[in-house]
């Protein structure tokens, strides 16, 4: 997280820690974790934890370890590209089904999914929250969760970011309507934050309540504008996938 601040897991109880590759995810249900496709591509059994602010091993031992039942990557995700040279992050979304239900509590609870109404269409200037244990301005990764607040910006802002990767040509990057561009003044997500939720307040709700508007996907450069997968565009797939794979409940 660039431009972020230390955060407690109680502020982001939906935050899922993926140990390898270091990444994030959003708990959306007792049995389901939403993350970016590029996080779980080639990793059918990711090691995940929830409920801990710190990544120290003794703290993780007190957290809940999540066991993977199956990984389902969106069929529109183009698989096989090298992440260092990938320029197409369209449909960067995946679901991880868990073997056992997650026990909810003050440090663990799901984030809501976007509703179907237009009120859930991300708008320019809407302020969202991101969190993660990824790279910061000072460290390649952190042991303590950090969070940041950043606004939604026009997709053009992300396109305009100057490419620093010498192995990628600027014109090769793919920008689609499935992406949200967000960030400002150095507030951004970065490596290790992938798959985490970009959380927006649920409209017309008095108490603080958030839904997952986006998933940390990619960016040309940390600390500027970043791209987030627009979750609302995938609600049909998410719900259908969850329904088809729910099967007989284990409880």
């Amino acid at each position, binding site marked *: 997280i660039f431009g972020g*601040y*230390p*955060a*407690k897991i*109680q*502020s*982001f*109880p*939906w935050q899922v820690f993926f140990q390898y590759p270091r990444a994030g995810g959003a708990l*959306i*249900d*007792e049995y389901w974790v939403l993350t970016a496709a590029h996080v779980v591509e080639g990793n059918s059994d990711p090691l995940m934890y929830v409920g801990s602010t710190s990544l120290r091993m003794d703290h993780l031992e007190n957290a809940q370890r999540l066991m993977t039942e199956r990984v389902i990557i969106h069929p529109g995700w183009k698989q096989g590209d090298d992440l260092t040279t990938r320029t197409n992050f369209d449909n960067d979304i995946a679901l991880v089904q868990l073997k056992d*239900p*997650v*026990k*909810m*509590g*003050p*440090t663990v*609870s*799901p*984030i*809501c*999914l976007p509703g179907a109404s237009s009120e859930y269409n991300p708008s320019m200037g809407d302020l969202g*929250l991101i*969190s993660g244990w990824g790279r910061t301005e000072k460290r390649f990764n952190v042991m303590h969760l950090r*969070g940041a*607040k950043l606004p939604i910006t026009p997709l053009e802002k992300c396109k305009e970011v100057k490419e620093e990767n010498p192995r990628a040509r600027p014109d090769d990057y793919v920008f689609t309507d499935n992406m949200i561009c967000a960030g400002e003044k150095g507030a951004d997500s970065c490596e290790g934050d992938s798959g985490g939720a970009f*959380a927006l307040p*649920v409209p017309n709700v008095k*108490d*603080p*309540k*958030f*839904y997952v508007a986006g998933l940390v996907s990619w960016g040309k450069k940390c600390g500027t504008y970043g791209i987030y997968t627009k979750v609302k565009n995938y609600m049909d797939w998410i719900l259908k996938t969850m329904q088809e794979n729910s099967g007989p409940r284990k*409880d």
Partner: protein
Amino acid sequence: EPTMYGEILSPNYPQAYPNEVVKIWDIEVPEGFGIHLYFTHLDIELSENCAYDSVQIISGGIEEGRLCGQRTSKSPNSPIVEDFQFPYNKLQVIFTSDFSNEERFTGFAAYYTAVDVNECTDFSDVPCSHFCNNFIGGYFCSCPPEYFLHDDMRNCGVNCSGDAFTALIGEIASPNYPNPYPENSRCEYQIRLEEGFRVVVTIRREDFDVEPADSEGNCRDSLTFAAKNQQFGPYCGNGFPGPLTIKTQSNTLDIVFQTDLTGQKKGWKLRYHGDPIPCPKEITAVSIWEPEKAKYVFKDVVKITCVDGFEVVEGNVGATSFYSTCQSNGQWSNSRLECQPVDCGVPEPIENGKVGDLEDTVFGSVIRYTCDEPYYYMEHEEGGEYRCAANGSWVNDHLGIELPRCIPVCGVPTEPFQIRQK
């Protein structure tokens, strides 16, 4: 030793008898014979009432004759001057003389012979209840057809005992009814019904005519009923004096009709039937009896169906109905079974929620599930309340038997994210 005949002569006969003499002869002939005693000579001092000298004839302790004076034959063809006939086989003759005989009296000469007695006619008491048959030296009694001679060899009776009635309804009458019943009989009848029935006897007044009681109120002929620990009667008289209906508490009844030697009347006729023992009607608000009757009796079978929410539990098996039979002891079979509230048992636990305080688990009880707030909420708001239904399931008005689901509350952080820069 009894003899068939003999001679008795006064002392010194035919010479004058001496003064102050008492001589006794005990005469005995074989049983079944009487004694014919006759005098061929009698010459004894005459005195008033034969007070001085006499010859006494005593039979059975009774003086049958006292003779004195002189006698002569009344018939030229017979030497007998005095004779006696006794229907008994023993006789005592006593000759007595006082001290003052001035004259010469020669006394008496007498003879006796055993003569056949007609026991059938010679006595005032009739020796046989029916037919008397005399023979030399004795007699025997005989009876009409269908009668038998009692062990006393004198009285006849009828063989009227031994009948046992087992049919649930029947009629019994005295022998020969309505013709005169036999005398000197004891008729015993037995009613033996299946256990579970009580004998009820009905007698119409006009169907009863038995020799009335004597002056002391004792029945000469009588009809008596005996059940377990109960006795009815004895009854006698013209017209039945007892209750028209005799309800016993027993499935057996002994009837005894006793008659004496005399006074045969028309007799009696009765009807009986078995009254089935009732079983208590134990209708409760939680059961339905079929068929419904005002009164249930022995052998009645009822189907007892529990109303909704109640069941009968036998072992570990629950049922909605059972059959019960009214038994011979007036108790229902399966009486230990009863309709009791259906027990839904301990409600199933749910994930991430719990059941409220469980006061009861029987039919109609209500439980409430709650979810572990604030992290879970109930999927269906109205899905928390379950009522124990008649089928033994906990049922919710909206979800039926489906358990409520506790869904995680989404999107609500415990602590809001606050930017706290180091």
